[in-house]
């Protein structure tokens, strides 16, 4: 409740500050015509789509955090299409919102519309994913996860898992990659390999690696094939929980015990992943937190007030081992 009150006060404060700023024009920051006069701050948010449980949780978090902060949220779903997202951003510019935030569908092709936003003096905040632009001043900051670091954390936590299981001998890893070309898939593989090459050059080896498209069905099918071609796999690293859950079913069908015969580390931390971990079938989960709404609102306020913010505000995330699963399970919202 305290945070809620804080947010409300902050929101009123922000609106008032914006009103003052309209006269002072300090810091050269835009004041936005709707921000003044005690009106609530307006945030235009364009979401990628609703392709997964993670994304749905992400949308919910943004909506509820905006409500708590007392901001007016204009929310649109781009259904995985860049043109939808561009037209949504143009709409927000036309409506003269105070801040625009969006999760870009793809990495490139944003220069034109971001320049329009800049010309209208509306600051832009990216969430979850980044973009490539010709001009760094086109967006203020990115609120999101560091996927490469998630890969590194996965390798680090695998060390702990191996130690706990008392594993000896070579570590033969099967990797289930995300959708080919997607940033999380590329970077989670990169981060993992980084640690592996640095610390475990001799004893760890990725024997097979293939895309499971971030889906359960994909994970299951690919893992079934892996178990045939490389029956000696003893570690599975899946780029998301869903593929891990699919793979668990394939491992069971092969008559092996997931979590024992094959140690499993996944990324994301969705509820079903935690359920599997509490059943002992997943050994460790590296969290990728979609609940970045409150952090986003905080940043939006700062940006609006003309405060300096970092270029990349990383989401607060943690790692979970099996013994923490049961305690953490009831708190999982997605």
């Amino acid at each position, binding site marked *: 409740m305290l945070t809620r009150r804080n947010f409300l006060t902050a929101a009123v404060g922000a609106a008032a500050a914006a009103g003052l700023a309209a006269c002072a024009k300090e810091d050269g920051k835009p004041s936005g015509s709707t921000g003044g006069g005690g009106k609530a701050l307006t945030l235009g948010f364009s979401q990628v789509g*609703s*392709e*997964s*449980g993670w*994304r*749905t949780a992400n949308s919910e978090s943004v909506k509820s955090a905006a409500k708590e902060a007392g901001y007016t949220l204009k929310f649109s779903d781009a259904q995985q299409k860049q043109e939808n997202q561009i037209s949504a951003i143009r709409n927000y510019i036309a409506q003269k919102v105070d801040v625009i935030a969006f999760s870009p569908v793809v990495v490139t092709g944003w220069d034109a519309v971001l320049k329009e936003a800049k010309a209208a003096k509306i600051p832009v905040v990216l969430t979850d994913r980044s973009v490539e632009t010709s001009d760094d001043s086109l967006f203020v900051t990115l609120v999101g996860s560091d996927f490469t670091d998630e890969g590194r954390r996965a390798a680090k936590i695998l060390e702990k898992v191996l130690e706990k299981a008392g594993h000896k001998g070579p570590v033969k890893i099967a990797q289930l*990659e995300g959708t*080919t*070309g997607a940033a999380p898939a590329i970077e989670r593989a990169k981060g993992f390999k980084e640690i592996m090459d640095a610390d475990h050059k001799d004893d760890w080896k990725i024997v*097979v*690696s*293939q*895309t499971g*498209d*971030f*889906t*359960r*069905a*994909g994970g*299951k*099918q*690919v893992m*079934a*094939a*892996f178990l*045939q*071609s490389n029956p000696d796999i003893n570690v599975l690293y899946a780029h998301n929980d*869903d593929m891990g*859950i*699919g793979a668990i*079913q394939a491992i069971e*069908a*092969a*008559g092996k015990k997931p979590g024992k015969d094959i140690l499993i580390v996944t990324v994301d931390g969705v509820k*079903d992943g935690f359920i599997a971990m509490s059943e002992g079938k997943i050994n460790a989960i590296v969290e990728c937190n979609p609940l970045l709404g409150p952090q986003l609102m905080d940043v939006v306020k700062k940006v609006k007030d003309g405060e300096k913010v970092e270029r990349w505000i990383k989401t607060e995330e943690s790692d979970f081992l099996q013994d923490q699963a049961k305690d953490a399970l009831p708190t999982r919202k997605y």
Partner: protein
Amino acid sequence: MTTTSRLRALTRHHLFWPVAVLIGLLLVNVPFTPDFFSVKMTDGHLYGSLVSIVLFGSPLILVAVGMTLVIATGGIDLSVGAVVAITGALTCSYISDQADQSALSAVFLAMGIGLVAAVVCGLWNGFLVARMGIQPIIATLIIMVAGRGVAQLITDGQIITINSEPYKLIGGGYWLTLPFSIFVVAVVVAATMLLTRRTALGLLVESVGGNAEASRLVGIRSARIKIMVYVFCALCAGIAGLMISSNTSAADGNNAGLWIELDAILAVVIGGTALTGGRFSIGGTVLGALVIQTLTTTIYTIGVPTQTNLVFKAAVVIAVCLLQSPKFREKVFGRKTRRKVTVPAQPVAPVEPAPKTEVSR
């Protein structure tokens, strides 16, 4: 008959090339998976690469069989993937609402709801194509695009996980040591073959595909036949949807059956059914679907880098299509495979011009 003429007769059989490609693909796996052909008992059921191929290939076989009849009437059904998603979403969300998810009556009712929805989609497609005269590719595009949205609406954008032992059986369980889905596929394929080849139905479907107007004039209710094949196709997709969602015990409105329509069309074409309509081969389609599933498994096992997956798949499919083209074979293999009847307009068409020859396999 001499040996050569026997050989020639064999290579001329319309199922020769699909079978040859399937065997070739299976053999490619052996160096990478030494015990590829071995099938052993694990936990009271058979386990091995061949079992996995059939298990994971079952939904595709079903969708492709339905697609075969639609294509035989000169149509195409792009909506099957969305129907897969809708059926799975409806069934799983009904089961997940039950207090006892393993209650047989609830599972049957849930499956019934899902299949009814599939049939409604088929009726809609058939109505647009046969009664409204809309191009099949456009008519079925509607559900292809909108259907996935409907599925996501049902699942609320979430992946619905269920915990129902009886429902798990249909797509992921085992019966008499074999994957249960094999029996479902066998029943559907056998029923389709009987209905289309032991009755006049197959002939009617082909005549509608050959020339819908002429068929109507000789007294065939071509509109009714068309609606029927779209409903059948959607029903097959519905059963496939049950299998896919049952296999992972979860309904994923966004990804279930994604792009399966394209794999199914490919399977139909590899099996020797002409996209122009008027001729079909159910046996060929089943083989075609197995070829595609084996190809997928092969990609996983031989360690093709993920970035080149699709290129590899495309290369194999191009090779298969070229091998099936009489013109191409004549150019490459010369006189040996020259045939009396060439079908220049249909590069991927099978060999025998008369459909009657496909009666018995």
